[in-house]
């Protein structure tokens, strides 16, 4: 089956089996290997990507379900040589060790901050509870997301001084 989708801003086409999982389309056909596979039961979240802006576990989405839609992966976070605030937060706060869960964890974080620019610690923990990390104990991941939240808030305030102070 022919699928057409936009991945990190670029239009892509592929001829796929109906059973092909989105994660395999991303990794094997598009060679974007930053999205990882950590389980076979939709438990670990290492394969998390954004589908039309919402985080999904791409091991549980068929490639054909992404037809005509927009996919964002870790490779699209850095823009024009500038790291996304979430990427910056993860390295500044030591929110990663082996790096395997990191792309999925960061995509979930990006989606969280898109819908809630200033999450509480509990909201952060709830948001990432579908992403397993075996190395960090989550403490520094929470800090990384808080770092990104602060940084994005500051950037927004600079751009839109009139909006400053609005909830």
């Amino acid at each position, binding site marked *: 089956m022919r699928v057409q989708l936009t991945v990190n801003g670029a239009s892509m086409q592929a001829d796929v089996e109906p059973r092909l999982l989105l994660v395999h389309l991303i990794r094997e056909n598009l060679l974007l290997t930053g999205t990882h596979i950590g389980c076979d039961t939709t438990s670990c979240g290492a394969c998390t990507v954004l589908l039309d802006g919402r985080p999904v576990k791409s091991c549980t989405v068929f490639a054909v379900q992404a037809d005509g839609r927009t996919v964002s992966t870790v490779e699209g976070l850095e823009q024009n040589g500038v790291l996304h605030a979430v990427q910056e937060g993860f390295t500044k706060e*030591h929110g990663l060790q082996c790096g395997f869960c990191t792309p999925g964890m960061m995509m979930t974080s990006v989606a969280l901050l898109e819908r809630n620019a200033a999450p509480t610690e509990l909201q952060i923990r709830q948001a990432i509870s579908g992403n397993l990390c075996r190395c960090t104990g989550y403490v520094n991941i929470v800090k990384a997301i808080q770092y990104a939240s602060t940084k994005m808030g500051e950037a927004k305030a600079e751009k839109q001084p009139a909006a400053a102070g609005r909830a």
Partner: protein
Amino acid sequence: MAVEIGGIGHSVGRKEDARFIRGKGNYVDDVKLPGMVYLDIVRSPYAHARILKIDTSKALAIPGVLAVITGKDLVPLKLEWMPTLMGDKQMVLPTDTVMYQAQEVAAVVATERYIAADGVAAVEVEYEPLPVVVDPIKALLPDAPVIREDRAQKNNLIWHWETGDREGTDKAFSASDVVVKQDIYIPRIVVASIETCGMVAKFDKVDGQLTVWMTTQAPHAIRTVIALVAGHLGLSEQKIRVISPDIGGGFGGKVPVYPGYVLAIGASVLTGLPVKWIEDRSENIQADSFARDYHITAELAAKKDGTMKALRVKTVADHGAFDAAANPSKFPAGLFGIVTGSYPFEKAFVEVDGVYTNKPPGGIAYRCSFRVTEAAFAIERLVDILALELKRDPADLRMQNFIPPQAFPYMSTLGWEYDSGNYAGALKLAMDKIGYAGLRKEQVEKRKRGELMGIGISSFTEIVGAGPSKHFDILGIKMFDSAEIRVHPTGKALVRLGVKSQGQGHETTFAQIVAEELGLPVGDIKVEEGDTDTAPYGLGTYASRSTPVAGAATAMAARKIREKGRLIAAHLLEASPDDIEWKDYKYQVKGVPAKSKTMAEVAFAAYTNHPQGMEAGLEAVDYYDPPNLTYPFGSYICVVDIDRGTGQVKVRRFFAVDDCGTIINPMIVEGQIHGGLTMGLAPALYEEINYDKDGNIQGGTLMDYLMPTSMETPSWETGKTTTPSPHHPIGAKGVGESATVGAPAAIANAVVDALAHLGVRHIDIPITPWKVQQILKEKGVAE
């Protein structure tokens, strides 16, 4: 210490992060070679069965399926069995009998991943079920079915190991005022690193070169094992290259050799094509090596005043169907001899029976070095039980008994020379930080109101950094480790090591050691690991041995360079070498600080203007054989609240004081402790692998194997004391596993403490809500 150099003691940002945060890591499953084919594995649904027939015809009829490999196909190649790291042997594929559920039965090679899976589904195997032994204690009974009929010894005992003074210990017990005794089961668990295991094998038929990209913590040892196992097929060690690329977590699970690796290599040799094998998570949880599974009976003898006198421990260790653990040869029960912990027992006796059962291989690490968690858990639980028995505060009882700081180096009654320690200092700091006295008052108040709150302590002693080589080897290969440093003419350096990071941040910390020793900025130092064609031989990263052994090798290699540099500096400064000293990261003429040369200047001269008669260049290699192990330690205090309705345990606070000697990178050390604590929380409250009576695994997927998420994991609080190792070149001890070793007992002790006034003395881990609720109902306090 200069900040701009980024030497020891600085929280230097990690070099490896740059690629990981961009999704540019290179893990085994990211390797894609032209013409690569895929291997998938048929696994047994039975825990013990005879294979009557394997019909591969339907699988072979699927377009794209290239081959189906069975045990019989491996017989002419003499590859149906392979040696384990423990000197036992393990089936690659069975020729007639399977020994555990999910054991490999056949391998399908196909042009695509999905077609290989189709092929696996199409292989038809007929089995005749055989009697199953899942309980290691029953496995030792005289009438138990013999699992390993291939052995001369016709029972299920693998080995018996003992240490200590049996008679002296018995006497000490007879003469003591108080004895406490407890059966403790530490269940089977699995490391479940987020990256599963896998390999890409590429055999070149023309030149006989085998290159493998493999999820391994010990690439050099693997190269030697491949040469030994498959030498008769023409695989020769100089033509075997093991590349361990980025590894998505190891924790011990990537030390053993699994059949899938051998099958991938075999398939590449047979087909001449590159072959990729990546296991699924369920395969990873069901068939790879497991940790723990220790049935312990522990007894402690003491005087009425609380003085601990003697310790007696008997253990049955379930190693599954093949003894494929990765313990040093002389120590089949690993370093379980550290079970006397932080206390100066006069006598101790420990015995362990390793036993075969119809389960996958057991006895590997779960982020802990060689059975140390089992030891720490047993002693720290016993100390709390003694405190209950004597109606003493558990902190007070520990303080009374600790080995005092002035006793180090301390020789334990079981023969381990503890290098350094200040146990009371660590516990006191933890008590102050968490407000121990206040918590005890709060507990009294809460008990009056019927609320269940507990405080648990664990004051553990770790033992890491194997060698020394006179005592430690794996398959005869001595447990040294290595580092090679090359300083280039422009003062930049390349460091190559025999260990392999799986997330620990070696590219950063080892660069910091070199920065400190050579005065070169950390950014100018590149660290490489995990390629046997380039790195010096080493035994790899596990059991917290990288910093104690390879870290020492790095410092020693750097010092060799510094010594040669001194001669070059003398030549450049026209001074006698004896008048040159290394000070403030420079060579200086003694007493004349203005006359100095930096390492970069000396490096340039090493290639452009070296003294005549001296070899050009500036490089060194060191194979470090540690004189002793290192003994990190810590004191953890945990506060829990228990819900009287659901039985749920909530970790309210957890304060961890660790002492790992000299700290190279505080940020990385703290991160290691956070992760270790979480892997201590996991078995204490959540994770467990069970089998039913037929040997069916319970909880063989991540749907039901409960790895802690961000919701279960508390905000860990950490503190430190620093007691350097006197024998390590930079005083470092290793830290990766301390928290996993120390945390479970603190949590279990806290839960028991919350229920102690109801008469509860022990609960086996994992302490699930169901277990707690049963106790609350029994005691009539359930809501």
